[in-house]
């Protein structure tokens, strides 16, 4: 029972801190610039897809992103395992 009370109190404190924290808003100038970037990307990508096969390009890019995520996950897991001396992983 005591454990639950302590855990609940910790959660309440964390939540209270999170609610209190206020991050600054994104600058409107930056936001307008990013909107313009998205707009011109859309204009430009139409021309790109005229000369580049869209289907195979999107597929390969998606696979590349997936491989990248797997590799990063693998590295992260191995980084944790190396911290365990008894695991014997160097």
């Amino acid at each position: 029972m005591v454990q639950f009370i302590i855990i609940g109190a910790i959660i309440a404190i964390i939540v209270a801190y999170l609610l209190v924290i206020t991050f600054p808003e994104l600058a409107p100038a930056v936001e307008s610039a990013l909107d313009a970037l998205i707009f011109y990307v859309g204009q430009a990508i139409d021309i790109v897809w005229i000369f580049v096969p869209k289907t195979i390009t999107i597929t390969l890019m998606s696979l590349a992103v997936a491989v990248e995520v797997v590799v990063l996950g693998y590295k992260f897991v191995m980084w944790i395992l190396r911290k365990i001396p008894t695991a014997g992983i160097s």
Partner: protein
Amino acid sequence: MIRFFSLFKSLYLRSGWIFFKCVSPLLMGAVLALTAVQPLTVNAAAGEFSFRAFNESDPVHSESGGAVNLSETYRPNQITIDSVSVDQLGHVDYFYTMFFDINVPISIYGALGGDSGYWDLRYSLLYTPSYVFNYEYKGFPYEIYNESGIRVDVHTDQLNFRITSSGENRLTEEISSRYYLSSSANSNSYISNYNINFKFQVSGMSRNHYPTGYVTLNLNNMRIVKNFARLVSAGNIPQLIKEVDKSIDEGNQAAADRWEEDRFDAEEAGSDMTGFASQLDNLKNTWSILWYPIEFTNRFIQVFVGGTSAAAYQDEFAYITGYTYNDETGFLEPIMSRSVQPASAGTGITFPAFSLMGYQIWDSYTYDLSQVKDQLPVVFDALYVIISILEMLWFVGYLRKKYEEVFG
């Protein structure tokens, strides 16, 4: 003859008017409406309707042919209609069913001896609804008990069913049966009481037109007449309607109470949820900068894949032809146009107009690059093949590089 029918019609209409005054169609409609929502059967109390059997010529003695003079030993008894119920049939607005449960107790004097006897029972149903539709009739005597409650061995070999006359406003049906008493079942009884029970139902009648007729029983010429209209109007139906109305009111009140309670609970829950949602909104607003990169990436990917034809792009940049820098605000402000569709402008290359010393050398011209693809399909197919091969080679090299990166 015509005057006779006119008189009959007038009497019939007047009786119908009185009848509907006694039984309010609105109340009956309420009952039937309730049964439409929830199948409901209302039953009259047993013994509420009763009348005495009689013989017009000789209430006590009457001769009839047959192996046993049952009519001589027949004593008029009270006939009870144990129950009358109303139920829906099909569309409740138009049709309903009435169930009749009738008991005919009879007493027989004298020994039947070792020989079997029989009696004839014939009953007919005459009713005059103004509209007959889908008429259905089910009725038969099916059990006979003696005074000790022992079922008497009775069987019948005649079961006739016929419609004696029919018309738009009149329908007469008659069913007759001959019943046999076996000697073994009642060999020593001198005085026996029997109870003939039969049930029948009349269905498919309009709700506004109750059967107004007679049930006639003929037991070896002992006529038993039951007024059908009185059965319905003067008896239990108004009382049943009151009971049903009461149950409706109670049900409505209970439903209203439940609804009020649910509404209160819902309001409380809604208030709590509103407060919680407000807190979440505040949290989202104050932390919006944290997930803006995710939002931007999502927008970028959608536009990268779909270009100007992507739904997200068209929703956000409809009628925008470009952006211009505002020196005062420092913002990139969109240039709005009501005539340019961004979806068709993505592959267009615009050559601006050129003027020299006040003379316009050439006008503005927009060339759509996608036309090249249609004009040179073979070239573009070859280009796609070459680029696909290059991309595959790149991807294989990428995989090889990642393998070496991970596994050394």
